[in-house]
């Protein structure tokens, strides 16, 4: 089918065939019409052409009688006589039964006696052989023959009146006779003459009318099928997807409509004239005229049908391409106006929109109240308008609800959430899109930050790894130096400094890796049920000597029984390890360290309190930042990462880490979720 549609030669051929079929249908249709009109006259003998031919023959008979009378009068000289004799012979020849189907009888004035006839078969009466019988009076008045045709046909009563001795047609005539004439009945016609031709023509009309009609219908059907194919194929171009509008299809539809209207109007105006002409032509058996009329009718009708088909085609193409409205001037004007109004309305501030909407509503209500024509049904339009307004308001509210829900989801932290902006009213849609953009921007920012944090952690791991290798050599060679015999006592001192600092560097690199891993969440966390008191005791066991060395007394306060938390034991140990090592490093010597475990609501907290040796001149938030220590001069052994690591590790386990500084009192509280 597609190949058929895309065939380049098929379509022009189909158009040509269509035009041919239309022309044929029109030609045959007109013939059918002619036959129809002919049958309205009735018989062939009642046509104008028949009358005219008959009259001409009658006057020929008059001429014949006149010539005969001239010859009989004897007043002619020789030349005239010879001429008249020749003429008479010619006329008689023309009227002879071998030359014409016209038959006449010249009867005596009383009608009883046949004076002359060209009827061959005298055994039968004139009426039985001849059809369309007319008659007239032949009078001879001082050598001049006159013929007065009666305009009514000869009937049986006419014969009766004549045979009954009717008076002579004219008083002053010297002599008179009756001319009775007609044409042989069709079955008796033996000669080819004008009557025979007329009969053939008329018989043709009568006999072929239905055939023409049927053929016309058949051609019409063929044309319709071709048109269907053409409409189906219209708009498609071989090698091109979809519907292609040709220049003809881009012309405004109104142009086509106007052309069609003018064409149709002309056709309708011309048709009565055409019909009159055609009736005349048939009546007169004017075949030239009928040919001309057929040609004109076919041309005009064909042009109109083709115009119609072309209009239909372009309509179908436009509808296929969904371009009907676009290519119609009226639609475009209306759409332009509507768009201008919508654009104007859309750009109004929301408050003005409300005002305009309100006045539109008022106008609608006013129109319903005063312009509605059906008074019995006066509340109906008002109810409809109000219902529509209610539905609109409900819809708007539902959309607003959707946007609000989406906003709440985003606000709750789900930055990937996208509010559905399809089918939202314009203002809400813009609002929702703006919210989506914000959430998108935030997601991107968060992702970038995560990426940079991870990059930082990776960098720190790599750098510290690269630091470890040279550090290994330093530590090893310092150790070697220590084993060598040093004569200079200051050298020994220097080596001790190197030893201390290299150990500190080692600790620093280790803490650095741990801090960066903990803060970026790159550590694996295996949480299980852990005894907090047990862990504290284990930690205190590890630190006992260190704390005693600084003369720090531990005051331990734990509740009855074990406090189970849900945490990673090794990470939690690192937290407590850091806190206790902080005590050992920064607590004022000879003071007490208070360590307490207490149960909260669904959680267990551990607090470590000690008095700082140096004044804590930084706020607690700063203390938890990396590389920050209580005192700014970095002379002590810590890396400044301990609290930062402790905080990160606590948070990794789902707990909270809190610092309180009150004068020199330093307090750290680790809270972890309780294990059921």
């Amino acid at each position: 089918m597609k190949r058929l549609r895309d065939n380049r030669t098929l379509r022009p051929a189909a158009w040509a065939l269509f035009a041919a079929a239309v022309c044929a249908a029109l030609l045959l249709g007109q013939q059918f019409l002619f036959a129809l009109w002919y049958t309205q006259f009735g018989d062939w003998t009642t046509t104008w052409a028949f009358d005219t031919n008959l009259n001409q023959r009658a006057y020929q008979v008059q001429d014949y009688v006149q010539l005969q009378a001239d010859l009989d009068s004897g007043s002619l000289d020789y030349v005239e006589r010879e001429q008249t004799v020749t003429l008479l012979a010619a006329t008689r020849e023309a009227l002879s039964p071998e030359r014409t189907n016209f038959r006449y009888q010249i009867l005596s004035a009383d009608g009883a006696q046949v004076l002359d006839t060209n009827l061959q078969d005298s055994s039968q009466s004139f009426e039985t052989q001849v059809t369309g019988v007319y008659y007239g009076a032949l009078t001879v008045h001082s050598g001049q023959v006159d013929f007065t045709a009666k305009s009514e046909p000869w009937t049986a009563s006419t014969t009766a009146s004549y045979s009954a001795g009717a008076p002579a047609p004219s008083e002053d005539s010297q002599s008179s006779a009756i001319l009775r004439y007609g044409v042989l009945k069709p079955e008796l016609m033996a000669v080819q003459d004008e009557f025979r031709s007329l009969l053939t023509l008329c018989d043709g009309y009568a006999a072929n009318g239905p055939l023409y009609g049927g053929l016309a219908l058949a051609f019409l059907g063929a044309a319709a099928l071709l048109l269907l194919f053409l409409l189906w194929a219209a708009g498609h171009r071989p090698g091109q997807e979809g519907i292609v509008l040709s220049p003809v299809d881009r012309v405004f539809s109104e142009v086509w409509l106007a052309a069609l209207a003018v064409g149709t109007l002309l056709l309708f105006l011309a048709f009565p004239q055409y019909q009159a002409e055609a009736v005349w032509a048939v009546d007169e058996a004017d075949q030239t005229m009928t040919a001309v009329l057929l040609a004109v009718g076919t041309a005009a009708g064909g042009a109109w049908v083709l115009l119609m088909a072309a209009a239909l085609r372009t309509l179908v193409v436009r509808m296929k391409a969904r371009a009907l409205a676009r290519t119609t001037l009226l639609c475009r004007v209306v759409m332009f106006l509507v768009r201008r109004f919508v654009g104007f309305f859309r750009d109004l501030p929301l408050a003005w929109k409300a005002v305009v909407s309100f006045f539109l509503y008022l106008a609608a209500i006013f129109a319903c109240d005063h312009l509605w024509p059906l008074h019995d049904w006066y509340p109906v339009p008002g109810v409809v308008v109000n219902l529509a307004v209610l539905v609109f308001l409900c819809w708007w509210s539902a959309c607003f609800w959707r946007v609000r829900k989406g906003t709440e989801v985003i606000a709750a932290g789900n930055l990937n959430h996208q509010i559905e902006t399809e089918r939202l009213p314009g203002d809400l849609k813009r609002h929702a899109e703006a919210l989506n953009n914000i959430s998108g921007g935030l997601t991107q920012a968060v992702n970038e930050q995560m990426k940079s944090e991870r990059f930082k952690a990776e960098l720190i791991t790599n750098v510290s790894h690269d630091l470890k290798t040279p550090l290994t050599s330093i530590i090893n060679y310092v150790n070697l130096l220590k084993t060598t015999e040093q004569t200079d006592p200051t050298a020994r001192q220097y080596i001790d400094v190197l030893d201390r600092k290299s150990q500190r560097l080692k600790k620093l690199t280790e803490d650095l890796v741990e801090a960066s891993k903990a803060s970026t969440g790159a550590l694996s966390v295996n949480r299980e049920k852990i005894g907090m008191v047990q862990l504290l005791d284990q930690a205190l066991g590890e630190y006992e000597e260190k704390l005693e060395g600084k003369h720090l007394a531990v005051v331990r306060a734990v509740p009855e029984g074990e406090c189970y938390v849900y945490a990673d034991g090794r990470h939690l140990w690192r937290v407590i390890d850091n806190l206790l090592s902080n005590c050992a490093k920064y607590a004022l010597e000879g003071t007490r360290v208070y360590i307490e475990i207490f149960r909260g609501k669904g959680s267990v907290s551990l607090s470590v309190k000690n008095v700082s040796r140096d004044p804590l001149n930084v706020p607690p938030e700063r203390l938890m930042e990396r590389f920050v220590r209580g005192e700014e001069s970095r002379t002590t052994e810590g890396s400044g990462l301990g609290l930062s690591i402790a905080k990160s590790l606590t948070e990794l386990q789902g707990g909270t880490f809190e610092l309180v500084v009150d004068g020199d009192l330093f307090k750290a509280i680790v809270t972890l979720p309780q294990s059921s």
Partner: protein
Amino acid sequence: MHTILICDDDKDIVSALDIYLTSEGYKTLRAYNGKEALLAVEQNEVHLILMDIMMPELDGIRATAKLREGSNIPIILLTAKSEDSDKILGLNIGADDYITKPFNPLEVIARVKSQLRRYTSLGGADKSPGLLTVGPISLDDSAKQVTVDGEPVALTPIEYNILRLLMTHPGQVFSSAQIYEQVWNDPAYGSENTVAVHIRHLREKIEINPADPRYLKVVWGLGYKIDKGGL
């Protein structure tokens, strides 16, 4: 007289280790990447290998895997990577021990000695009925004596009893209270701290690096256990 192969791409580290091990009376060989190490093992009789992980040509992990195809020479990995996953990988591939950089040379010597003793002498020791063994640690209950790599260790009675308790149930975690009740034969009553201190002393006596114990382990928040070695 044992031969030790030192393999690291950092020549200074190799030299330093060379000095320490030579001063301890070991014969040393040097290699600067995994391929050289394999070659050295092929050409010489080597009793122990110290192997860095991150090396050009052939890294320590691959070299260890290659060596393990046909040899059970003790291999100690030297690694700058302190992540647990690296240690586990190294031990699974067939290394016997690991030391993280930056290391203490004394710890290296101790671990070398330990591995060599186990590799050379411990193989065919008679097993008396009262003998408990975990890794290099042996506890002879009849003689009330504890040896680590064959070296006798002096323990206090409490330390001895704690160690015996843990060694009779290797891998099992004992809480401080359980240990106290079993060793002191008293109900635990606020004295759990004592257990922790004793355990730490015990660890200092039997572990090469008490801060990174291989056998007597703290299970934080749960208790203590003796592990068969490794991590």
